[in-house]
């Protein structure tokens, strides 16, 4: 009886998530009357704005990941090694982006970094891109920090650090050659989550008036019928591709298997 309930709950859950996806995919294939076709997808891929906005978002995602890794890995490492008492504070700070809406953050940015401020980042395209990268890094912070922190929990950070120090290594060598490679899977999962967030983000990019993929999806959704669900399916495929990559990296990382 218990097993029946479990299976019912599982099947219901799957249907709840899968039915809208199946419906959306089916609708995206109905552009040509009476037959299923990939016309909507072809239209999307033929649109030069798709490639422009997608490559822009991809570039910013890469910048966000690099900045996020440089910020989060040393911070999480230092908190674990030297400041365990500061952990609750850091965790609270990293959770703030989940509580504060992106629109509040971006309005704060515009107010602080407008053309009449000391640091007029919004005055140039590059400056705004930097600002947008910082914004994306803030949005991805809860995911990146938790992923890295979980990775650090699987290794004996203190002893490995001391072992490396006793062999003559300095902080940079320890971080680059010992800590980072040992939490690489965690960093990559954080990186892929960041990529997924950046690709679909709308609010910040729209309000900072940058040609990102999120505003393009919104624009297409407001004006077309079949292309938006096709675009949504593409976005899902990218996200799932990222998840698959995480699994793949874990499987091919030889020393990581020891932890499993």
């Amino acid at each position, binding site marked *: 009886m218990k097993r029946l309930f479990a299976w019912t709950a599982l099947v219901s859950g799957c249907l709840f998530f899968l039915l809208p996806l199946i419906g959306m995919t089916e609708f995206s294939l109905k552009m040509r009357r009476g037959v299923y076709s990939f016309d909507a997808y072809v239209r999307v891929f033929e649109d030069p704005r798709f490639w422009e906005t997608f490559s822009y978002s991809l570039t910013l995602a890469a910048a966000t990941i690099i900045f996020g890794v440089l910020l989060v890995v040393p911070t999480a490492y230092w908190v674990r090694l030297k400041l365990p008492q500061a952990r609750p504070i850091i965790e609270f700070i990293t959770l703030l982006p989940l509580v504060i809406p992106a629109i509040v953050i971006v309005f704060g940015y515009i107010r602080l970094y407008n053309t009449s401020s000391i640091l007029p980042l919004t005055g140039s395209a590059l400056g705004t891109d930097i600002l947008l990268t910082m914004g994306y890094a803030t949005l991805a912070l809860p995911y990146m920090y938790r992923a890295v922190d979980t990775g650090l929990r699987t*290794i*004996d950070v203190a*002893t*490995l650090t*001391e*072992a*490396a*120090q*006793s*062999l*003559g*290594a*300095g902080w940079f*060598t320890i971080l680059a*050659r*010992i800590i980072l*490679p*040992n939490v*690489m899977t965690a960093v990559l999962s954080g990186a892929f989550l960041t990529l997924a967030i950046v690709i679909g983000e709308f609010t910040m990019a729209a309000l900072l008036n940058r040609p990102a993929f999120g505003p393009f999806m919104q624009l297409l959704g407001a004006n077309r019928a079949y292309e938006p669900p096709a675009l949504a399916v593409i976005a899902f495929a990218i996200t799932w591709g990222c998840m698959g990559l995480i699994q793949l990296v874990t499987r091919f990382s*030889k*020393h990581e*298997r*020891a*932890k499993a």
Partner: protein
Amino acid sequence: MAFLDLSKLEKTFGTNRVVKDFNLGIDKGEFVSLLGPSGCGKTTVLRMVAGFETPTSGSISIDGQDVTDQRTNQRAIGMMFQAYALFPNMTVADNVAFGLAVKGVPKAERTARVTEMLQLIGLPDLGSRFPFQLSGGQQQRVALARALAPSPRVLLLDEPLSALDAKVRVSLRNEIREIQRELGITTIFVTPDQEEAMSVSDRIVVMNGGIAEQAGAPFEIYNNPRTRFVAGFVGTLNMFSATVEAPESGLLTLAGQSLTLTKTAIAARKGDTVTLALRPEAIQLGRAEGRDFVLPATIEEVHFLGSVIRIKARVAGTVVALDTFNRPDQPPPPVGSSAEISFAADDVILLPE
């Protein structure tokens, strides 16, 4: 001046004084063990030598150079940890080569040194394996090779055998000692295990409550403990209360019989009570030549340990442990039977009050 000199070392954590006025000089090539119960400060001393802890006061010098304020990575030390601490992302060869790579040693030289080190620890074919593919004993051997590869001035061993099973512990401790002798490297070994410390050390420092209670060769520490703690911590000890009859001649009364101590004059007055101690191997079951002091006993426990039989007997109201060698023609006495024990006055240790 000693090669490694620890002078007036103190370490305080908050209000807790963990190490108090610790002084120790270690000669080049010497193997010294810091022995004591957990919380006695032995690991803190080792960590101060390594540079992981900064002394509250005092100084540390290696080969005449004051290293008290130097960072760990500038001290040229090698260290083995209880938890192996091999880098999981690197192969055995890369682990061993790590210290050399940090020093900027050219690749060809590095490879040769790694081969030499892997041969030294008896694992020449395991260079391409990852740590998780090795047993605990193999991992600790690799950790030793890694620590030795950059030719450190001092080797620090922080309870490296604690995580291993009994058989591996014995063989590995002997291997470590052999390699240490071969390379002539100055070594500090921290352990709570007295047998381990006694079997491999040139000298043992017995620590208690943050101070060094006694330092000396294992033979000296075992046979002539200077404090009650050392006597009790190192080896098993049977203790008796005796009354002083004539302090100048060493005459005492024990269980109503007279006993004259030949080794030590008694620093007590007539009528005082003193504590005498005897090692289990100093007590003989039954009468024996040269063991003049005989007491009646009742056998309470018999533990057959293979080559040795440990017997617990009640003597003058006290339970004493004594060891006899196993002889097939001489079965151990039954529990509850009456017997006699004997010992020589020379074997009696007079414990300071």
